[in-house]
């Protein structure tokens, strides 16, 4: 089943988040998880032999509604992708600051919280 493949993508990302020691690779694994989630959402909204939900002047409304794929998950995934970029920027800024403070990317060596 094809949904399980996208679940596999999410799980590979989750494994990467839990196992890695380098904080930059944790960020990259989070990015992989996000990709998996977006893929799953768009897979759910697919209609077999469907066309994209954009009309042109020659389609009638009823046959368009019977043939197009679901526009709602696409809209939500679109906003989610742009938000993902903003979150990635915030995470990378945090990583840069961590490197400036501790001199390393290694999570097991960042032991002290600064008040």
């Amino acid at each position, binding site marked *: 089943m094809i949904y399980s493949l996208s679940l596999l993508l999410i799980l590979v990302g989750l494994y990467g988040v839990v196992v890695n020691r380098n904080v930059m690779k944790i960020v990259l694994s989070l990015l*992989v998880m996000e990709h998996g989630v977006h893929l799953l959402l768009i897979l759910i*909204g697919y*209609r*077999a032999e469907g066309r994209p939900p*954009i009309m042109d002047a020659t389609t009638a409304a009823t046959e368009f509604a019977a043939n197009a794929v679901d526009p709602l998950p*696409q809209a939500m995934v679109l906003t989610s992708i742009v938000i993902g970029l903003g979150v990635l920027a*915030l995470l*990378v*800024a945090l990583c840069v600051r961590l490197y400036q403070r501790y001199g390393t990317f290694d999570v097991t060596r960042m032991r002290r919280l600064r008040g």
Partner: protein
Amino acid sequence: MIEVIAILILLAIAAAIIVVETTNLLFSVISVGAVGFLLAIIFLLLGAPDVAIVQIGVEVISLVILVRATMGRDVEPAVGRRDFVGMVVAVTLVVAIGLFGMQIFADFPEFGSSVMERVAQAPSNTYLREGLASTGTPNTVTAVLLDYRAYDTLGEVTVLFCAVMGVLAILRRKARVPLGGDDATEDRK
């Protein structure tokens, strides 16, 4: 059609495994880019051109940001795994979630029949049928984003704004007016 999509997803999974496992940070970044581009092709095949455009553009920008952030900082490539107990816990967690998820997906309808075919009151049916008539835009995804679900767009704009303000606040250089005398600590206003 579904075989092509399945092969592409398998390629994306292979790239994701490279992201997680390799010890070189640059290879990981490039593989994340590969996952993103494969995903854009899959979106095109699934009939979502708007999402594909955004995915490619965002992937390019995030690749540039990531490469800039990781070059020159990998002085000691501190990659590696956690200890053995951590590994066992991680693998158990992932396998448990995987089995649980497969159980959920076994109840799903098969690939290709979406929600709106089975539930007549699904909002997507209304959007597709009356989208052009009530909003005047042939692009149903834009109509959904900016007319039917415009609150979500407002929320997204807010989140993006806050994230950028957060980056501005985190990466602020040292204070122009030194506080109290010692310049070695960060300024936190």
